[in-house]
């Protein structure tokens, strides 16, 4: 066993030890997100936008599906990565109003790996693929927008028309959507 310290040796007073010019140390969360971002391998339908390139913790993801109900739409998500990443998942919100069974009108997203199934081995890439999948395969079993989910289950053709109307900026039900076609 290594001898850690001698009891005879008094520790110096705090002030005397201050090192000058010491730079702040990168946190483990920062080191991890840097790796995640540097290795982001985006599908061609996705793009990230960093408003401040020095801030890797806050960014936007744009998904433009090229197939499925939502093809030709353009959907923006905001990512907020906290100091407890990757113990806790990032906070992800959909900034584009969308008629979708798993996304509500406030932008909350029901994706298991964003909440109950999050695990520190998952990465930002995993979330991007999860979100992209939501547009290819909306899941009416886990509804967040119940009307949209019911519609998808009862009448796929009408659901598809509603999605298009919403993306064109028309009203669906009582909701006026903003246009988000490319």
């Amino acid at each position, binding site marked *: *066993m*290594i*001898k*850690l*310290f001698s*009891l*005879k040796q*008094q*520790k*110096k007073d*705090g*002030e005397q*030890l*201050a*090192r000058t*010019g*010491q*730079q*702040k*140390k*990168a*946190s*483990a*969360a*920062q*080191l*991890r997100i*840097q*790796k995640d*971002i*540097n*290795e*982001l*391998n985006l599908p061609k339908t996705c*793009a*990230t*936008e*960093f408003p401040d*390139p*020095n801030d*890797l913790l806050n960014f936007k993801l744009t998904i433009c599906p090229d197939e499925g109900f939502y093809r030709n739409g353009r959907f923006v998500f905001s990512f907020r990565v906290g*100091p*407890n990443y*990757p*113990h*806790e998942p990032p906070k992800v919100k959909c900034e584009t109003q969308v008629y979708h069974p*798993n996304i*509500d009108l*406030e932008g*909350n997203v*029901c994706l298991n790996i*964003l*909440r*109950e199934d*999050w695990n*520190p081995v998952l990465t930002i890439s995993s979330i991007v693929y999860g979100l992209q999948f939501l547009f290819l395969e909306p899941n009416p079993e*886990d*509804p*967040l927008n*119940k009307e949209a989910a019911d519609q998808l289950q009862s009448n796929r053709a009408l659901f598809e028309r509603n999605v298009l109307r919403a993306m064109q900026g028309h009203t669906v039900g009582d909701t006026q959507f903003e246009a988000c076609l490319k």
Partner: protein
Amino acid sequence: MAADILSVLSGSPNPLTSLNSKRWNSLRHILERPGPFCKSDFTASAENLEALQTVLKILVIGAGGLGCELLKDLAMMGFGNLHVIDMDTIELSNLNRQFLFRRKDLGLSKAECAARFINERVPTCHVTSHFAKIQDFDESFYSQFHIIVCGLDSIVARRWINGMLISMLDYNEDGSVDPSTIIPLIDGGTEGFKGNARVILPGLTSCIECTLDLFPPQVTYPLCTIANTPRLPEHCIEYVKIIQWEKENPFSAPLDGDDPQHVAWVYERSLERANQYNISGITYRLVQGVIKNIIPAVASTNAVIAAACATEVFKLGTSCYDNMNNYMNFNDIEGIYTYTYPPEKSDTCLACSNTPQDLNVDDPNTTTLDDLIKILCESQRFQLKSPGLTTIIDGKNKTLYMSAVKSIEQQTRANLTMSLAELGLYDGASIMVSDVNMPTTIQLILKYHPNEVEMK
């Protein structure tokens, strides 16, 4: 000798009278007699008790459920010089187990009240309080302590102090840790009837970051369950917390679990929602607990874990016995269960396996960032593919270059042709480098060499 000791302890009780007191008889049996289980560097002597009283300086982080126990344990075990940090103030619901506080202390600083209580009650111990966040202090503060012991409920805070202690390590030429720079971290944690105590020797044993997956994930419920098929009172509270609060934003502020108006608003809405779905069990306390992610604390679990931690501080401080190796799980749900094992140090740990490496550069005025990236890609030592580089300048993160992300690449491309000096990278500056060819982000320390030194 006596004068030395007294000068160290200005303002503290006179150790010479206390050292002769009968109250230390049982400690003397341990500290003044050799035994087969003592560590090899242990010498039985009366000086051990003296050191406990006058030399060893221990920091207790947290003055809550575990912190109160720790301060009491350490003070009664003969430690004479304790510091305590806590940013919280005392609430009514603390009083059942945080026994250093009284009703008259409500609203006051936990650190200050705890220190005052111990100082009045235990004449051989002096506690210095810091009503502050741990992040308010830098390494000059933490380096004054021999041992740091944590009773925290926050993983963020644990990760922070862990990173701080690892960043304070110095390394020998052969890459091994200079043991004199190690400040042991004893960490206790409890959740209801479960708890753990561990001994972390930064750089030698596994650290908080190595074993991040040992911390239980926060309880979360699927968003769609909360929104559509709530079954538990917690589902209703989460719904109001996540969805209704954002929608209605009643106080034009983020939800604050310490603001009674906020909690009351969530309580009323949760109750409405629970009634809609015929769910019972919504109480004000539960609402507050869900908002703040509180898991009910059990006084006996705190007492056991704090005692285990204090014992480890004592063993480390006096060398009277080998330390626990190094992680103990405890639970008292049905009977008592404990299991102690040493979790492995992770090779890819972002904190403790990430020893900063030196990178020699000839001339910071002629070497551009692009040159630096070429070195990283072409040298035998690194063989990187498309490294992303960041640094910290004046305490702020700065992305130097990252080719993988288009928007960052465009905004940092101009840096490529700038010299390291122009980028503000001084001798000894550290840069963080990630690459697909490396399992983690590594830290490089730039070392500038005048040309004549750096010749082949």
